[in-house]
């Protein structure tokens, strides 16, 4: 019995994989600001800030995979009058979100490494705290947009019964 439990489960096809993928970027991108915040701690701060960057990179890559697999899966969704507008909003907002987090990830990388790379040019060794606080505020606003994308996806599944399916073999 344990033998079969140690075998990996079957992978759905690309157009059915969206539900498997989509929770990764949401979790990763929502947890990374916590690491950004811990980045303000003295001494250990920089390690947390770096961990935040790693989570953001993984989450953003996940967002691209989620959007692309979602587009494939959306072709299997029948556009009833109720489903069509919610699905369209979900797709458009998801497209926006991946762009937002690409920009945020790049900005956080610049804030972490930019000053060190430019240290010969008589700039401060670390990005000013005010810049990091402004980043955190912008990040939290984008996290709300991300939460709304997830909420729309949740409505499609739990309110309208939209499902990605595969034969499970």
């Amino acid at each position, binding site marked *: 019995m344990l033998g079969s439990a140690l075998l*990996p*489960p*079957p992978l*759905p*096809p690309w*157009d*059915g994989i969206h*539900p*498997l993928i989509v*929770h*990764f970027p949401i*979790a*990763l991108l929502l*947890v990374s600001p916590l*690491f950004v915040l*811990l980045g303000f701690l003295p*001494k*250990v701060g*920089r*390690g*947390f800030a*770096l*961990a*935040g960057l*790693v*989570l953001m990179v*993984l989450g953003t890559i996940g967002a691209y995979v989620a959007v692309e697999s979602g*587009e494939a899966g*959306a*072709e*299997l*969704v*029948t*556009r009833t009058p109720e489903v*069509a507008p919610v699905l*369209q909003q979900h*797709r*458009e907002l998801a*497209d926006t979100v991946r762009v937002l987090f690409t920009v945020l990830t790049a900005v956080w990388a610049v804030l972490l490494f930019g000053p060190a790379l430019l240290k010969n040019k008589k700039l401060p060794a670390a990005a000013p705290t005010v810049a990091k606080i402004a980043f955190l505020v912008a990040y939290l606003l984008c996290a709300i947009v991300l939460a709304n994308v997830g909420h729309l996806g949740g409505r499609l599944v739990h309110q309208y019964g939209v499902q990605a*399916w*595969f*034969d*499970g*073999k």
Partner: protein
Amino acid sequence: MRTNERVPVLAGTSMFLAVVLSAAVSMGQETRPAKPEEKKEAGMTTTLDNLVTAYNGESNAHARYVEFAKKADEDGYGQVASLFRAAARAEEIHAETHGEVIKKLGGTPKADLRKPEVKSTRENLEAALKGETYERDTMYPDFLRQAKAEKNRDAVRTFNFALSAETEHAKLYKEALDNLDSWKGGKKDFYVCPVCGYTVVKVDFEKCPVCSAPKDKYEKIN
């Protein structure tokens, strides 16, 4: 990396692994799909039969709309003629996508093309609206139910494409019928997705709302 930097990096990595593992176990499995040959043996219609019916319907609709467009031009309803041409192109695309699935299932796409019955432009619009309404409300929903039960994703995809487009066609025909006089005169631009046949008056999106094809792929038809 300094030792005090390693701890949080490790914390972040283990967080990632935890998410990976929990998501991997969250996928549910579904029951085995009913086999089409079992349905066939029981004298029931299969998705392949439905695809052949839909292929025939779309091919005939294409031929009918081409003739309706000529008649609309003769009657001075240039904008209605454009609409019929756009819808004809969409039906042609649906016939193509249905045909590909038929071939994939081992069948042969073959249409029994009938000579279109052409009447006045108003009557042609009424006939077209009736046809699209039937496809939207009855035919494609039934075919989709069966294709989903058979877990035939290719069939579901092509029926979804057609259903979305027919819904728009019905709206546009209704609009033309309600204001027929204002549809007189020159041509009108319509845009048709070459992948799914979705038909619109204005491309106000980045990607096709039905198949995600980029908006610049849309064909202008007038």
